[in-house]
């Protein structure tokens, strides 16, 4: 906005608003006196006295007037400044676009990178950590984790069974508690594609489903989009079978047809009725099972499940006004009381209660905080780098500023111009950065391969944009600080006197630039060190002995119909496996009900005749498998034999155990041939084999046992095949073979075993990828910083170098001295960064695996990388310095 015409005019006249007030009042008095004289015919003196009397307290009116004048003045000055700033912005835009395109492009791009990284990471942090869960009043939702009192005595590796509940316990707590408005449960022992849907158009297919009780959706505050919730009667023996569809399934299978309510659906050969459709906003997987998506929700038959053991995960909604601590105190007295009352026969259900949000996102919080810190460092690096650039530019423009100041521009207007420039850069950088962040988060939200909670909900929202705004403004202010300091610390007039020859910065700004580079290197060092530790941990995790060989193996979920009879099961699987192993290219095949790194359950396992210390819990993870499973998985048999088809439902009961189970129950002995007690029955141990990483790659395996499929009921069937062929080409043949034996076999994908392992490490991979990318970015920025400062100092010292060369300094000597100055800066930065890393490393401790936060190898590697970067960044200016022609340099 240009300065209004009248203001210029007013300035020209030097108008004083206070004087205006006085003039105005004086005019009033004069006019009054005139009128009084005319009316009353009295003398002017008398008239004046009368006028003043009528006027009242002239002084206080004048003061009021002056106050108004001051305020008005301020108002106008602000408006002027804004107008001038707008003009400065225009000027800055013109300068940057027309004259300094390169500088502008580099600044905007680096800023955009920094802002994009920050915006994107903030949107992730906001979604996972800051924003509440996507349920109404979600702060009242509570997660129950059972078996608290025995968890210390029990192997930490007993998996889900150790923290879930029996139906009897759940019902007892549900009936008697007074803290919860609703207490609800679901069955967490689900896998991917547990259900076979048939009766729809097209072939049978597998979908993922979860069993919930009738209170589950109401407790979360989720209402069906269409139809109704499942009823309590449907969760009991003999209840009608109804099913709720996820929004995605409804769209995919039924094209969003609202008339599907009441239609039939065949799930695992049983008839169900579609009772309702859930809203698109309800994403069970995102909250309760990151990385999986669920298609159907089935009423869990609690009467049936009450015979199975620990089957339920519990979620509660607190009554209004009840705190989680109060609920915990109630649970601490209530649950032991219920147990004493004999509400359930065995099992420890003392519970720790946590907020559902804490349960869902607690594990990723630390990683995200680290990520947030890393991008913060990046932005700092970007700002330091650009400040450095601005400082160099300010030095080059000193002549321009000196001239403008000589022509009457005050320091204020020069500052304003610098601020306008950095504001222009920051705005462009923020806009570009926000756009990049938007693209990145959109991409991220569609990724299924990272098992992170709430990942699909990530988006750029208002909070995120506000954060971007804060960062942009901060960047603008930070960027203008350095050049303002540069101007303010220097006598502009003397610059003008020295003429255009002097483009040198003062020693103060030289020192400042050195300091900038040192802090850049220090920041990059902290980033690199953190990334290095995380990367090392990631490699250590990948290097872990899984106990099985994921390469060249693939998995398919298969369907079987044994009519619930164990004697039929053996022959069915024997037939399937003999046909499958006969296929060309298949080396081995076997079936297990659950695979490592997926779902799990545990049973008690003890050596017969051995007395255990009181409180001992001999839980072992149990897998129901067929002969050939170990070979297909590549699990090493240490001792003994694999199961055979001769181990049938009528022959002697046998199990295979892992090393950890052998150590726990038969320490120092060979367990093969021993009798163990499983579920109150005697079983013979026929082999021991390698420990398999069952729960996660990082957790050392606890006791594990394998039971033949003919002697225990499997909870599903996953067929593992070992083959050198590409799973994609093999899948159709495999499916055809399975369908010949069982027409109901649904269309299922053949996943590689490696895929399952990758999924298990995906959160770690996610963070390592991001942190490493940020560290690389930091390294580039630091390198640019070093390069900028060294080449600037070389160009400034051209004369001095020329003299030294004329006096006999060798080219290599000059090169060396330039490189040495680069190395000095880096060394100082590494020392500072090393100290910072030492103190910040502790923060990373819980994220590391197989390495320590003070790992010297990583630190030395990082220091060497930085030194190499310094040499690289210093090389070009050093070469330029050594080629300086002494004659030309001296003549200048």
């Amino acid at each position, binding site marked *: 906005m240009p300065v209004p015409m009248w203001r210029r005019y007013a300035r020209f006249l030097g108008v004083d608003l206070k004087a205006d007030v006085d003039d105005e009042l004086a*005019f009033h008095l004069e006019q009054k006196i005139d009128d009084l004289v005319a009316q009353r015919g009295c003398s002017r003196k008398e008239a004046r006295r009368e006028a003043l009397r009528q*006027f009242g307290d002239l002084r206080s009116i004048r003061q009021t*007037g002056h106050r108004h004048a001051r305020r008005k003045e301020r108002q106008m000055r602000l408006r002027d400044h804004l107008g001038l700033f707008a003009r400065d912005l225009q000027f800055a835009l013109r300068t940057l676009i027309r004259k300094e395109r390169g500088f502008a492009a580099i600044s905007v791009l680096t800023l955009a990178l920094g802002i994009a990284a920050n915006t994107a990471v903030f949107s992730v942090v906001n979604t996972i950590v800051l924003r509440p869960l996507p349920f109404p009043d979600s702060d009242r939702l509570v997660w129950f984790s059972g078996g608290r009192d025995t968890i210390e005595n029990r192997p930490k590796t007993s998996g889900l069974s150790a923290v879930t509940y029996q139906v009897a316990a759940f019902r007892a707590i549900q009936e008697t508690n007074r803290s919860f408005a609703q207490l609800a449960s679901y069955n967490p022992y689900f896998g991917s594609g547990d259900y076979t849907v048939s009766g729809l158009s097209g072939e049978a297919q597998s979908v993922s489903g979860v069993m919930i009780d009738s209170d589950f959706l109401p407790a979360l505050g989720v209402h069906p989009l269409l139809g109704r919730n499942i009823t309590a009667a449907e969760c009991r023996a003999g209840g009608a079978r109804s099913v709720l569809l996820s929004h995605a399934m409804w769209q995919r299978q039924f094209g969003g047809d609202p008339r599907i309510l009441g239609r039939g659906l065949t799930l695992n050969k049983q008839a169900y009725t579609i009772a309702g459709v859930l809203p698109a906003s309800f994403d069970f997987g995102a909250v309760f099972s990151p990385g999986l998506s669920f298609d159907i929700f089935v009423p869990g038959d609690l009467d049936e499940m009450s015979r199975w053991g620990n089957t339920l995960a519990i979620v509660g909604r607190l009554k209004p006004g009840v705190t989680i601590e109060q609920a915990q105190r109630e649970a601490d007295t209530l649950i032991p009381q219920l147990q004493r009352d004999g509400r359930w026969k065995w099992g420890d259900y003392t519970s720790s209660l946590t907020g559902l949000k804490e349960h869902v996102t607690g594990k990723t919080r630390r990683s995200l905080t680290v990520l947030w810190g890393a991008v913060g460092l990046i932005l700092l690096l970007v700002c330091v780098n650009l400040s450095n650039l601005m400082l160099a530019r300010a030095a080059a423009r000193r002549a321009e500023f000196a001239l403008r100041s000589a022509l009457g521009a005050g320091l204020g207007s020069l500052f304003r111009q610098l601020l306008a420039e950095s504001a222009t850069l920051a705005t462009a950088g923020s806009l570009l950065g926000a756009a990049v962040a938007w693209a990145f988060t959109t991409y991220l939200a569609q990724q299924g391969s990272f098992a992170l909670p709430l990942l699909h909900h990530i988006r750029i929202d208002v909070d995120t944009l506000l954060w971007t705004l804060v960062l942009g403004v901060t960047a603008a202010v930070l960027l203008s600080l350095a050049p303002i300091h540069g101007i303010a610390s220097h006598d502009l007039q003397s610059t003008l006197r020295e003429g255009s020859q002097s483009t040198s910065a003062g020693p103060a700004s030289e020192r400042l630039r050195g300091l900038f580079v040192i802090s850049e290197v220090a920041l990059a060092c902290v980033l690199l060190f953190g990334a290095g530790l995380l990367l090392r941990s990631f490699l250590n995790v990948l290097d872990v002995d899984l106990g099985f060989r994921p390469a060249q193996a693939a998995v398919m979920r298969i369907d079987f119909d044994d009519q619930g009879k164990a004697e039929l099961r053996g022959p069915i699987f024997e037939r399937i496996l003999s046909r499958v192993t006969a296929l060309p290219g298949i080396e081995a095949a076997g079936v297990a009900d659950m695979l490592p790194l997926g779902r799990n359950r545990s049973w008690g396992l003890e050596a017969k005749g051995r007395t255990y210390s009181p409180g001992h819990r001999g839980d072992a993870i149990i897998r129901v498998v067929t002969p050939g499973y170990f070979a297909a998985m590549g699990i090493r048999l240490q001792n003994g034999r694999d199961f055979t088809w001769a181990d049938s439902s009528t022959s002697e009961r046998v199990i295979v155990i892992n090393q950890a189970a052998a150590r726990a129950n038969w320490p120092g002995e060979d367990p093969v041939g021993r009798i163990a007690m499983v579920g109150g029955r005697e079983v013979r141990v026929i082999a021991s084999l390698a420990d398999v990483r069952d729960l996660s790659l990082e957790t050392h395996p606890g006791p594990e046992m394998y039971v033949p499929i003919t002697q225990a009921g499997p909870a599903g069937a996953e067929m593992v095949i070992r083959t050198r062929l590409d799973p994609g080409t093999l899948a159709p043949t495999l499916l055809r073979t399975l369908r010949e034996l069982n027409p109901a076999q649904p269309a299922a994908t053949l996943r590689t075993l490696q895929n399952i392992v990758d999924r298990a490490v995906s959160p770690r991979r996610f963070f390592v990828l991001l942190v490493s990318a940020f560290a690389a970015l930091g390294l580039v920025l630091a390198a640019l910083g070093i390069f900028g400062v060294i080449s600037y100092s070389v160009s400034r010292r051209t004369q001095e170098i020329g003299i030294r060369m004329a006096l006999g300094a060798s080219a290599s000597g000059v090169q060396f001295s330039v490189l040495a100055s680069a190395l000095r800066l880096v060394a100082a930065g590494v020392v500072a960064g090393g100290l910072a890393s030492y103190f910040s490393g502790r923060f990373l401790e819980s994220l590391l695996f197989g390495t320590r936060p003070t790992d010297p190898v990583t630190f030395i590697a990082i220091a060497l990388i930085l030194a190499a970067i310094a040499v690289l960044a210093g090389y070009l200016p050093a070469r330029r310095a050594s080629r300086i022609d002494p004659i030309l340099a001296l003549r200048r």
Partner: protein
Amino acid sequence: METQLELIRGTLDVLILKSLAWGPLHGYGISNLIRQQTDEALLVEEGTLYPALWRLERKNLLEAEWGLSENNRKAKYYTLTPEGRRHLRAESKLWEAYAAAVGKMLSATHRPEES
């Protein structure tokens, strides 16, 4: 009993705006105009007039300019801004409605019938 009425709070602004509806005036002119128009019933004191003028000016309802008075003195003339004109229209309507309502009540002769 005095024939001059006390100004009711908040009415001064409207009176000033109205007095400028016919064209620019200086402060003294405004006070004269109000006095004459109200048949000397309303007297605006300088101690309230000027602060009100300045306030209205800062609120952008009035604009001021220096000019020459009838007897060739430098005087500060006030003019209505478009915003001031709008404000005047709105306020006048409000006042008429208010006055009519109060009038109706005060001139009532009997209790309303219970219905």
